[in-house]
């Protein structure tokens, strides 16, 4: 199955019974229609699926799930997930507004995922990698103990098996419901990334919308080459926090991928459709230390 077929099939399942479809779509006999968040145009969902869920009118990149990310990047059929059973508990008995256990349960139900990151072995352009993808639907893909553990194991498996690491990031930051255990995952994942780097195994990250806070300020930006999807919001402090602190509005485009490129923080802004080829070429360069196969 090609990537676009897969998206089509998946989206068909997801949207056939979608409620709140745009009124115009309801009048039309065939297909499902969605409104682009950015240009507000109504887009035929099949067309969106063929276009890697990028708006054909304005180029807006719709969110992808972790499994869609894997499907986008991994060679077809090459992905084998590991550590799917590593999940969050509620170590602090955290209750503020609502219990953490309730948030976890609804995140699992909504996303169909046990945690906010999916990790596994795969090949990309034939290169053996460990591939991880974060899923924003799961408590904003925040990093608690389980995400930190899975990301750490991603680096450790790669180190043990001499694989490259490719991580597709998305996150609101550290998971506050696990308190300091979450903050420390920043140090833990950074330490694991460093060990991989010391063995000269390549690590590529793809920053997607949004990647913020403790995930940006740890493993996400420790990659050898950092790619970002167009228009993604990436940074440390959230825009609202900054606005409240400095008491002024932020310039247009602040903390976008393009802004980061301009400020020297990422290597390249790569439209989604070109990501698999770009990652493959980068691995071609880095995996064998420049040796042409």
């Amino acid at each position: 199955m090609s990537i676009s077929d897969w998206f089509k099939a998946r989206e068909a399942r997801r949207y056939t019974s979608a409620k709140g479809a745009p009124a115009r779509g309801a009048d039309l006999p065939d297909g499902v229609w969605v409104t682009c968040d950015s240009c507000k145009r109504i887009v035929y969902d099949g067309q969106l699926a063929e276009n890697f869920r990028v708006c054909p009118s304005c180029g807006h990149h719709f969110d992808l799930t972790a499994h869609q990310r894997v499907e986008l990047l991994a060679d077809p059929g090459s992905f084998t997930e590991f550590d799917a059973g590593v999940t969050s508990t509620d170590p602090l008995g955290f209750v503020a507004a609502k219990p953490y256990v309730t948030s976890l349960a609804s995140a699992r139900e909504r996303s169909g995922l046990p945690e906010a990151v999916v990790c596994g072995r795969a090949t990309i352009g034939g290169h053996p990698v460990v591939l991880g993808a974060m899923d924003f639907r799961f408590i904003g893909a925040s990093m608690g103990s389980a995400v930190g553990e899975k990301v750490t194991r991603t680096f450790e498996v790669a180190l043990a098996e001499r694989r490259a690491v490719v991580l597709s990031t998305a996150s609101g930051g550290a998971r506050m419901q696990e308190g300091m255990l979450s903050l420390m995952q920043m140090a833990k994942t950074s330490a694991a990334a460093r060990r991989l780097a010391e063995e000269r195994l390549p690590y590529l990250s793809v920053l997607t919308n949004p990647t913020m806070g403790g995930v940006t300020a740890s493993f996400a930006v420790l990659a050898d080459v950092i790619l970002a999807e167009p228009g993604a919001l990436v940074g440390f402090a959230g825009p609202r926090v900054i606005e409240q602190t400095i008491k002024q509005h932020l310039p247009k485009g602040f903390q976008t991928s393009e802004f980061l490129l301009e400020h020297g923080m990422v290597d390249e802004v790569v439209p989604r459709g070109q990501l698999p080829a770009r990652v493959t070429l980068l691995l071609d360069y880095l995996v064998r230390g420049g040796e042409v196969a």
Partner: protein
Amino acid sequence: MKRRHVMDFERPLVELEDKLAELRSLDLAQNPELASEVESLAAQIDVLREETYASLSPWERVQVSRHPDRPKTQDYVAAICTDVIELHGDRTFGDDEAILAALATIDGHRVAVLGHRKGKNTSENIARNFGMVHPEGFRKAMRVMRLAEKFGLPLVTFIDTPGAYPGIEAEERGQAWAIAESLSLLSGLRVPVVAVGIGEGGSGGALAIGFGDRLIMLENAYYSVISPEACASILHKDAGKAAEVASCLSMTATDLVGLGIADEVLPEPAGGAHRAPEEVFGAVRARVATALRELGSVGSDELQERRYARLRAIGVIGSDEG
């Protein structure tokens, strides 16, 4: 005269203490009855002081940790270090005064010192951005970490920041990148690292220089993934619920020991470190010196393995599939 900073929860105590001080300033030689009343008031105050400070709530500890008179990094350096040479600048952009970097000697140990530096008055606080670090501050810290490693000097860090600065320029210059690189560097540093939580441990900005082979926490210091105010405004849409949230975040020194993140809690004088700073300096000097001695005998490969294992063990996870 400098206005004293009184925390809400200690106000009744402080008012009585003031009254007592006033009474004691009187000449009571001619009035033995009043003198004995004064002594009984003093005894009552001792009991009240004990009660007020015996079991502070996490939110009350946050107030203590932010007390303007609380000893700052520069006070610790002045009190426990000799032969201090302050180092400046990141060699790329500037010198962020919110980070203090120095070569210093503690109890005969030659070390590199890093700490978040708050000011003691408004003008100092403006210059030091209230201890909120910009990327160049973390890069200055990294420069000194590398220096320490190169010349085999152990690193001692003092943690006291509300957090890394959230501003336009900080983002433009790569705040997240600077923190991440600092975490990476610190995690693999081939010299002993002793971190001391002396006040506020605000999130990533604290962590960037705030972990190592030992983490010693002062009793009223906190260390948190997010400030209680910010957490309350996100989860409750009400920053006023900070006190409630502070109790959920496991952010006190004792909590950190329980979670396997900190090694020990250093007791503070009743009311907080600012009440008797010399006592606290002495205790910190002794504990840091002990840690340096213990770590000094560990080889650098072993040190690295232990530090990784220490980080590796942090976290609580479940397992869905047996």
